């Protein structure tokens, strides 16, 4: 029998039992729609989180000084200041790599000025020029930026507020950061008493907008605004505003920000809060990470247990977060899959009823020449049609549901709404719906095909 005719007969069978067909289809719709919605939402979140994490650092490796914690006899976590101060005291003698200083290093040392390191006053682990030299000796390292963070009272016009200030190396920060200026320019070598501010600070903080080339007061000293950054986008862009700084300036200026609080001593020069590293394109990321760790440990004379610095690699965070979201999505999709299973049981049930109901017709068709294969295909097509219609409506409903969820999120998080459609989700849902239909229809169809014509004809 020609496939066109088989499809026609199967379609008529679906049509002849509209109510039953629709009830079965609804079961499939619910299953497919939930799988679809969960897979798409999961994919969307993964994308957003990855984007945000990349925005926070991308492939930049950040090193921060941190005192290792040790558990004392009472089981309390205490700072191991003893160890670190010993280490710090020794840093002066360290830096065996400084001899191998390259041209690039010289450039760094020039711009970093020649302020001496003062490790003797240190009671906590800190990052210094020595560490920068150590890092520069690693061939895979392309750029190094140092950060000094601080806070200040910002006065503009008659208003005052507290802001976070981030001091950066004006030579290398523009090459390393993924922030971009919307107006004005980035920092450059030789900049002094200038700042770059975030869009939020420019627009939303004061009644009057802070404009390019205007002067602002930080702890009473005046600085000129030479650049305004672009706003961070994306679902989690707002979060960056919470954690990020709103003022960027050459790091040397941060040391000299005199604090209004008398008790706060002026910052020690050439001590950094963090060091950011950008690797050469094509560098072996993992190997470079290990090398950085090894060299820093050697130069800082620490072991794995007494390590007083922490290497933060966003790439690893992105990978592990991605895995976490994937796992979560798979788990939720599995639960949604259960409803799909229930839906497919519905198809099987309908098909069995249908075969029973059509037994006599099967007998007639066989008597007038239909082959087992024809009968089998008719019932399989019937099941496939039910599941395909359910699948298509399910995909549409699932997609619509995702948009509603995303719209609610976008309203809640005050970010622009983005349409999301997962290709993977759509293809999976379509394939699953057809396969489910075929599997659910297979046994009833086989039963129908193998009916003996003489028995089928006798069936009332």
């Amino acid at each position, binding site marked *: 029998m020609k496939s066109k005719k088989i499809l026609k007969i199967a379609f008529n069978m679906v049509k002849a039992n509209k109510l039953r067909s629709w009830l079965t289809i609804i079961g499939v719709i619910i299953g497919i729609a939930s799988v679809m919605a969960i897979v798409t939402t999961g994919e969307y979140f993964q994308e957003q989180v990855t984007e945000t994490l990349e925005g926070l650092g991308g492939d930049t490796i950040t090193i921060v000084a941190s005192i290792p914690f040790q558990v004392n006899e009472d089981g309390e976590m205490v700072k191991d200041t003893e160890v670190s101060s010993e280490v710090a005291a020794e840093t002066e003698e360290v830096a065996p790599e400084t001899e191998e200083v390259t041209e690039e290093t010289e450039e760094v040392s020039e711009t970093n000025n020649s302020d001496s390191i003062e490790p003797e006053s240190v009671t906590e682990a800190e990052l210094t020029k020595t560490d920068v030299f150590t890092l520069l000796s690693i061939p895979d390292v392309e750029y190094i930026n140092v950060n000094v963070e601080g806070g200040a009272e910002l006065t503009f016009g008659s208003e005052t507020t507290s802001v976070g200030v981030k001091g950066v190396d004006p030579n290398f920060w523009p090459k390393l950061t993924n922030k971009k200026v919307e107006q004005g320019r980035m920092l450059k070598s030789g900049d002094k008493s200038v700042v770059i501010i975030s869009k939020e600070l420019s627009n939303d903080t004061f009644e009057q907008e802070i404009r390019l080339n205007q002067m602002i007061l930080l702890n009473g000293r005046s600085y000129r605004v030479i650049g305004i950054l672009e706003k961070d986008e994306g679902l989690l862009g707002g979060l960056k505003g919470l954690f990020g700084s709103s003022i960027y300036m050459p790091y040397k200026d941060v040391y000299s920000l005199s604090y209004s609080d008398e008790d706060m001593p002026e910052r020690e020069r050439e001590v950094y809060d963090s060091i950011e590293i950008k690797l050469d394109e094509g560098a072996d990321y993992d190997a470079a990470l290990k090398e950085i760790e090894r060299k820093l440990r050697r130069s800082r004379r620490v072991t794995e247990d007494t390590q007083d610095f922490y290497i933060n690699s966003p790439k690893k965070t992105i990978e592990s977060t991605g895995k976490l979201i994937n796992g979560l999505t798979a788990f939720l999709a599995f639960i949604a899959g259960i409803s799909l299973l229930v839906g497919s049981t519905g198809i099987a049930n309908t098909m069995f009823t249908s075969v029973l109901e059509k037994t006599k017709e099967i007998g007639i068709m066989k008597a007038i020449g239909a082959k087992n*294969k024809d009968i089998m295909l008719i019932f399989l097509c019937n099941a496939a049609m039910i599941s395909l219609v359910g699948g298509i409506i399910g995909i549409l409903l699932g997609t619509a549901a995702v948009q509603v969820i995303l719209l609610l999120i976008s309203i809640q998080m005050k970010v622009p709404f983005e349409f999301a459609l997962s290709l993977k989700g759509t293809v999976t849902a379509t394939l699953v719906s057809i396969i489910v239909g075929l599997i659910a229809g297979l046994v009833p169809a086989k039963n129908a095909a193998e009916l003996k014509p003489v028995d089928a004809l006798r069936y009332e």
Partner: protein
Amino acid sequence: MENTLIAFRNVWKTYQMGEVQVNALKDVTVKLGRNEFAAIIGPSGSGKSTMMNLVGCLDIPSKGEIFLKGRNIALLEESDLAALRGRTIGFVFQQYNLIPGMTALENVLLPLEIQEIDDDTAEKRAKELLTLVGLSDKMQNKPSQLSGGQQQRVSIARSLACDPEIILADEPTGALDSVTGKEVIGILYRLWKEKEKTVVMVTHDLHLAGYASRHIQLKDGEMVRDEPNKEQIDPEA
């Protein structure tokens, strides 16, 4: 014999009814040739239906052999048997057995579609047949919108769709009143007489059997009589 369409050779059909084995057909040997009008007669339980199923190749014998156009049906593949049956035998059932969801035309088209005849030829043929049985104005009616006699005529048209050599009619007038029944037997008679079909009619009605040219009588599964009907009735007369 070249003229033979169906040959039974020592055919037995045994059914298992619980613990008991029932021999529905016992050692039947018979041949049906071209252009015969045979009536298989006998009271209920005599094995008529079993005989009819075997003649129609809807079932295979428990013992013995059945040859349809020289081919042993027990040895044929299911799909080959189905194809052979579809082309060689047309069925007319007591309860018409039309597909309720299809129109008269679609019911007649179905065997042609199963045999993969192209659409235009099939439709032309189906319409001709419905016209032949006098239903040219009822082609788009579903079986539920037709009377018993009209349904049986659709059933006859369907049986003729693939131009089979054998028309197998099971109590074709059993569900009809006498006037309509006579119309239907008239059609079958003409198919034998004018179209030279082999008509095999299963009936318990001796009057109906009177229209046939040959009587095969069954009793308790045995063939007790097989002879020409010397007093064949002509429905046209």
